[in-house]
């Protein structure tokens, strides 16, 4: 352990308002820590160069899952275990429930929060592909009020996002209208448990009379931040799934993906596997659609 606990301040105002007022009074000075599964790892490695931390752990106003007739709102402080234990949520948004089961071990999932996963903004963040294909919106909050934008616009670059210095992520919202969609998610990593993904792809699609009438593809590790695969989607939409279409989709993906090389994998491997995953989803769509 290389961190020095004397080198960091940590306070716990204990309420959302208390944290927001602190962030507003000294913007950029205080950094939130939720479950700490990113921050404490950096701390242990002696890489944490943040002097002042403010705790979000235990703030109940941020830890909720509210399912309604047509949507769900998930507080930024909800943990991945919270998500996995919520039966109604898991049934209605299975891709995100599945992704939650991938985030490290049980001990990690009991601390790791959805907000922390997104703000940390790793290109490999496991919750991102599912949020992208469910048209999630992200709600940010500050003493100035709150604002809601499509989640796909949240990340702006490698570990960069649209949060202002005085803002917190408050919640993620997802509509329920995907119940009729065919849904897909797959993560490729070195080991089933505890492995950060090399590539992950999620998809939701509607088939109409043999034609792909709607499709959303979300990917982790195929760019510097989690992204929709817009160009690949455009190639597929409005067309029947044929051998030629699958080839065209693969080509579009190879052209549009811009993954990075890192310790877990190479860019070339990621592009190839990304193309294979999209192919798998298209084949599933063709197969399921062929069934009476």
């Amino acid at each position, binding site marked *: 352990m290389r961190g020095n606990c004397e080198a960091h301040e*940590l306070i716990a105002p204990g309420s959302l308002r208390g944290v927001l007022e602190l962030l507003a009074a000294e913007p950029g000075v205080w950094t939130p820590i939720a479950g700490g599964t990113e921050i404490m*790892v950096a701390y242990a490695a002696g890489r944490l160069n943040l002097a002042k931390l403010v705790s979000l752990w235990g703030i109940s106003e941020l830890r909720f899952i509210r399912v309604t007739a047509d949507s769900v709102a998930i507080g930024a402080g909800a943990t991945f275990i919270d998500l996995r234990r919520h039966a109604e949520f898991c049934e209605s948004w299975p891709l995100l429930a599945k992704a939650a089961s991938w985030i*490290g071990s*049980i*001990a990690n999932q009991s601390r790791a929060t959805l907000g922390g996963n997104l703000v940390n903004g790793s290109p490999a963040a496991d919750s991102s592909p599912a949020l992208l294909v469910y048209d999630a919106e992200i709600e940010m909050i500050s003493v100035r009020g709150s604002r809601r934008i499509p989640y796909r616009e949240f990340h702006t670059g490698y570990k960069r996002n649209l949060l202002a210095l005085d803002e917190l992520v408050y919640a993620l919202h997802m509509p329920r209208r995907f119940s009729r969609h065919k849904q897909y998610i797959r993560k490729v990593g070195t080991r089933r448990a505890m492995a950060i993904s090399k590539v992950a792809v999620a998809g939701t699609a509607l088939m109409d009379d043999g034609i792909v009438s709607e499709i959303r593809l979300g990917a982790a590790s195929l760019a510097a931040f989690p992204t929709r695969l817009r160009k690949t989607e455009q190639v597929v939409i409005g067309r029947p799934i044929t051998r030629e279409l699958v080839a065209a989709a693969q080509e579009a993906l190879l052209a549009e993906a811009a993954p990075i090389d890192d310790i877990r994998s190479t860019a070339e491997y990621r592009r190839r596997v990304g193309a294979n995953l999209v192919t798998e989803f298209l084949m599933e769509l063709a197969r399921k659609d062929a069934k009476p």
Partner: protein
Amino acid sequence: MSEFRPSITMQVNGKIVTVIVPPMKRLLDVLREDLQLTGAKEGCGEGECGSCSVRMDGELVNSCLIPVLQADGAEIQTVEGLATNGVLHPLQECFLACGGAQCGICTPGMLMAAAQLIARNPHPTMAEIREGLAGNLCRCTGFLRIFESVLAAATQIQDSEADKANHAR
């Protein structure tokens, strides 16, 4: 530099304790250094190995990733809190009987992960045991014996509960 020393109160293995320590001190270090509970071990110090696992408010956590301020007011159970009045917990007995421990470095964490699993799921399948213990690494015993120990303990707990129910009848 932080001069701030909050007073932190936790219930550890059923006992209320108060410590005055830097808020970023890790729960693991507070347990080991301030409370002399050296059961939880530091393996990796970064959430990967589970040797520091304890239960906090009924959840399994890695104490190496918890700044102690975030444990203020919490209920903590460590491996020292598994046995009651000197009688080993069935998990501990089964680890002994089934050869579930060798050097013992991973064992406190394995036991706490297993205790968490059984608390939420008294009848775990082998697959569920594997998932429950997936965050705990062992370098010597071999995982099969550990999984078998947990399975044996779950069965023993079920049997003794069935016995109790029969006696009560």
